[in-house]
Structures are given as structure tokens and as C-alpha cells.
């Protein structure tokens, strides 16, 4: 009996695809671990109401400062609020801030970077401004902006975005400056492709891989800065249970009830770790030249 070659190929395909997944995991373990951890955190944030939580704001003065137990998994704080529920709901704040800042600063940085990479005059002015902004530590920029505005999540996102934009701009500008000199861009322009079309079809897609890597590091940094701002009392309003706020509330009680600080701290660290692993893995996968080095 003869089997057509196409049939063989069809039979072999599923197994090959499965091996592809396995190879992918073996080659890029950090992407997979990071993505899984992050996925779990995202699921936890979305399904917070169904994870055995109670209202994170519900006060219960009789049950204040209870140690972790079967009833209160992570204990209760000085107002009797359930630390487990607050920590689970806190994932919503951290992830929202991290992802919003990453998206916003990437979009802004991309726009500014593309323009500065192509216009010498704009470049000279804008890059001096970016250099100046980059010489102010990002936490301080965010603190300064937050001290002037009323505490809200929206303002936290804006403040951290302002602090992160110069880095993205610099990255995009660097990529554009390199690409501009490459033969395929020259060829596109020489063969009569319009300037904006060249920018759109040839330059823009090539900025995506480094931007994706940068965006995951930006999200990680933004989550840390949000927690720092809240911890210092200049971030998310105190009535919102963000990880930084929970830790700030536990600060003065650390010696008697350290669990209030350590649980949200652990969740924050794991989320940031997941983002960093994802960024590392993406960099290795997208830029093989750098992969060996870092």
C-alpha cells in the first residue's frame, strides 16, 4: 500500500508541533516561567472576588491584628481588615499601573523617538531635554509630580510615565539612527517609497522587538515605583488596597505583626520577578547576539 507524501506530512505535523512547544520551553525557560507567573497573577487579579476573599475594605475592629489562621489566611491588620483579601485585590492595582505605564510610555516614547531619529533639529532640542530628565532619578520625578497633584491612580500612572518616557525615547531614537543607515531603508527611499511609507513599513516594525523587551522592564519598574510611592504616602490613595499601601500601613506595626508587610511584599516581588524574567527571555529570544552575553 502506498501512502502519498502529503499524508505522511499531515500525520507528522501534530507531533512536530508538540515537540516545537517543548523545544521552545527548553530554549526559553525564562519566557515560559515569567509568562506563567504573570498569567497566574493576572487570573488572581481578575477573579479576586471568587478566591475566598471578603470585602478588602470591610472593617472589623474586634478582630484586629489577628495572626494568620484558617479564618484569616494572611491575618488581619490594625483595623481588622483581612490582609489576604487586600493582598489579592492589590494585584489589580499593581498590574494595572504596570501595564498602563508600559503602554503609555512605549506609545509616547515611540512617537517622540521616531521624530527625533529623523529630524536633526528636533533631535538636538528634544534629546537635551531627555538627558536632563534622565539625570533626575525616576522615583524623584514621580514624587515631585505626585506632591503637586491629588492622589489618584490616574495621576500615579501619569507621574511614572513621565519618568519612564525618556528611556523609551532614547531606545527608539537609537534604533532609528541605526536603521536609517541600513541598505534596505536606503533601497526603499531610492526606489521612490515615500518618507512616511518608509517610516511605517520599514522602520516602525523593526523597533518592535526592542520595544517589547523594554516594555516588560518598564512594567516591572513601574510596579516598583508605584509601591514605593504608596509606601512613602505619595501614591495611590490610602483607601485603595495597593501592595505599597498595605505595606505602608503595616510599617509602624512591623515588630508585632510583620505578616502585614511580608505577604504583599512577597506578591510584589514575585510579580516584578515574573516581568523581569519575561523581559530577559524576550531579549534572549529576539536578539540572539545579546543572548549569550547577558
Amino acid at each position, binding site marked *: 500500500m502506498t501512502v502519498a507524501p502529503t499524508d505522511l506530512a499531515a500525520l507528522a505535523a501534530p507531533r512536530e508541533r508538540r515537540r516545537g512547544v517543548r523545544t521552545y520551553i527548553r530554549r526559553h525557560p525564562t519566557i515560559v516561567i515569567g509568562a506563567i507567573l504573570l498569567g497566574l497573577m493576572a487570573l488572581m487579579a481578575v477573579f479576586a472576588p471568587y478566591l475566598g476573599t471578603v470585602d478588602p475594605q470591610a472593617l472589623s475592629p474586634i478582630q484586629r491584628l489577628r495572626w494568620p489562621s484558617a479564618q484569616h489566611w494572611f491575618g488581619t491588620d490594625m483595623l481588622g481588615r483581612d490582609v489576604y483579601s487586600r493582598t489579592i485585590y492589590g494585584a489589580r492595582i499593581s498590574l494595572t499601573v504596570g501595564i498602563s505605564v508600559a503602554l503609555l510610555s512605549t506609545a509616547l516614547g515611540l512617537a517622540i523617538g521616531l521624530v527625533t531619529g529623523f529630524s536633526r533639529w528636533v533631535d538636538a532640542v528634544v534629546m*537635551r531635554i531627555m*538627558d536632563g530628565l534622565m539625570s*533626575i532619578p*525616576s522615583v524623584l520625578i514621580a514624587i515631585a509630580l505626585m506632591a503637586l497633584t491629588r492622589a489618584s491612580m490616574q495621576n500615579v500612572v501619569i507621574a511614572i510615565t513621565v519618568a519612564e518616557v525618556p528611556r523609551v525615547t532614547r531606545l527608539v531614537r537609537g534604533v532609528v539612527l541605526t536603521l536609517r543607515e541600513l541598505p534596505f531603508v536606503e533601497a526603499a527611499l531610492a526606489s521612490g517609497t515615500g518618507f512616511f511609507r518608509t517610516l511605517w513599513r520599514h522602520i516602525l516594525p523593526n523597533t518592535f522587538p526592542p520595544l517589547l523587551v523594554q516594555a516588560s522592564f518598564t512594567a516591572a519598574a513601574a510596579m516598583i515605583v508605584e509601591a514605593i510611592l504608596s*509606601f512613602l504616602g505619595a501614591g495611590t490613595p490610602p483607601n485603595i488596597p495597593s501592595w505599597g499601601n498595605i505595606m505602608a500601613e503595616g510599617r509602624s506595626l*512591623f515588630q508585632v505583626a510583620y505578616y502585614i508587610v511580608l505577604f504583599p511584599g512577597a506578591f510584589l*516581588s514575585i510579580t516584578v*520577578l515574573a516581568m523581569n524574567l519575561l523581559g530577559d527571555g524576550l531579549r534572549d529570544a529576539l536578539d540572539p547576539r545579546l543572548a*549569550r552575553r547577558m
Partner: protein
Amino acid sequence: MFAYIVRRVLATIPVMAVVALFVFALLHLSPGDPAAIIAGDTATADDIARIRQKLGLDQPLYIQFVTWVWALLHGDLGISIFTNLPVSKLIAQRVEPTLTLTISTLIVSVLAAIPMGVLAAWKAGSWIDRMVMVFAVLGFSVPVFVLAYVLIYVFAISTDLLPVQGFVTIGGGLGPFLSHIVMPTLALGMVFAALIARMTRASMLDVLAQDYIRTAQAKGLANDKVLVGHALKNAAIPIVTIIGIGVALLISGVVVTETVFAIPGLGRLTVDAILRRDYPIIQGIILIFSAAYVLINLIVDLSYTFFDPRIRY
């Protein structure tokens, strides 16, 4: 060489000008009346008027800017709204703990991280390399205040080895000074050390692949001489660059570390200023920290000529 130094020094002027402009603009670009925001929610119209007059906000914008820059160039950072004391004096009072903590962190991190990076690169792929990389990723992911609390839990609450918080100057005796500075230094230094170790490893891997390293080994030079004398010196420029850039992490971290460990430095001053919306203090602190950062990176730039004498553009 001299031209290079002059050019580098001059290049810091536009950078600091932008910083100053940003700090000045902050107060004026913010939505709403800055005087009302500083005064807070419970302020009366009188309070607001008083603050407006004190900050010179009733003057035209360009006059405000010129007055402000002129005062700045004379070392006058303005008057604190809450305490009525000169900001420069308030900052000077708090500099010592911050400077002590930052310098001790800088020294400890660099001394720990560079050997780690060198070892990891030399034994690339081994378990030492893996451990260093794990340290680098973890160091980058555990926020400074989380690490600080873990350290307090381990060394001060569970075991009682170190004091929970506080600060003693070197003048207060070496023992108390060291016991108080150990935990803040470790907490603050982790992320910095992770950054340096990673860059050292990457830079060393590049250099170790060069022909002259093989030559040095082939002629029978001892490993330590090859690693330090031949490889590390040539790998130094990216390392000192990242040390300079990483100082931004130290500055951000020191504000948080001082809060956790109740150290009366510039970080505490910042946090108190935020809570009281004492804007002249916040402006002054941003200027001082940014100037320190720019200065350190200037020193880094100048050190290039030492590591690589070919650099003299």
C-alpha cells in the same frame, strides 16, 4: 585630553539647566493654583494668599524664574513653607547619614559585585555562573523595602543580632555605627550589586573571547593576572558606566531605605516634605540629588581616559 575634560564639564551645563527648568516648571505647569495645592484641603483664603506671596507667585512668571535662578546660583534654595528655615540649611543638616549610607553601599556593592561578575564570566556555564545570574535576577526583582523588612525580620526580630532601626554616626563609636549600617547597606546595595555583577559578567565574557587573552594564557601567565590585569582592565568601561548610571537606583532607594530604618537623612526629609507638601524642600532635594548624579557621571566619563588612554576626543 584637556579638551576632552573641558568638553565633558561643559556638557553638564545644559543637563543641569534642564533639571532646573523642570524643577521650576513643575510648580507652574501643575493643574490648579500651586499655592492652593501646597496649602492643602483645609486651608483658608488667607493661608493661600500668604503662601502665594511667600513663594513670589504673585509676580510675573519670567521675573519669578530669573529671581529663582539668581538665588539658586548663590546657593539659596528658598525657604521651607512649614518650618520657615532656609532649605539649604535643612538639607545640610541631613546630608551626613545619607552620604554615609550611600558611600558604604557603593563600596560594599562594588567590592562584592565585581568579583562575582568576574568569577561568573570565567566559569561561564558552571554552577557559580548560574548562582550569580540567579542573584542578579532576584536582586533586580525584590524591591528595596521588601528586602529591608525581610532583613529586619531575620536579623532583628527572629534572632536579635542587629538593632531594628536607627542610625549612629561614625563619631558615635565604630561598633554601634557598623551594627546600624549593616542592614540598610545590604538592603540598598542588593539591586545595585545585581546590576554591576551582571554588567561585569557580560563585559568580561566579551573580553575573555579576545585573542590577547589566549596569548596571555598561552605564555603561561597565572589566571589571576590574566583575569585582573588583562581582562578586567579592558572590561572596565562598561562596568564604570553602569556604576555611574546605577547611582540613580541608589538615590531612589535611599529615600525608601531611610524610611524603613528611621535614618534621619535626606530621604526622611523628602518624605516629611511630601506629607506636608513643603514644595521648596522637594525642589531643593531634586536639584541636589540630580546634581550629585550628574557629577558622579561626569567623574565616570573622565575615568574613561584612565582605563582607555585612546579616548581623548
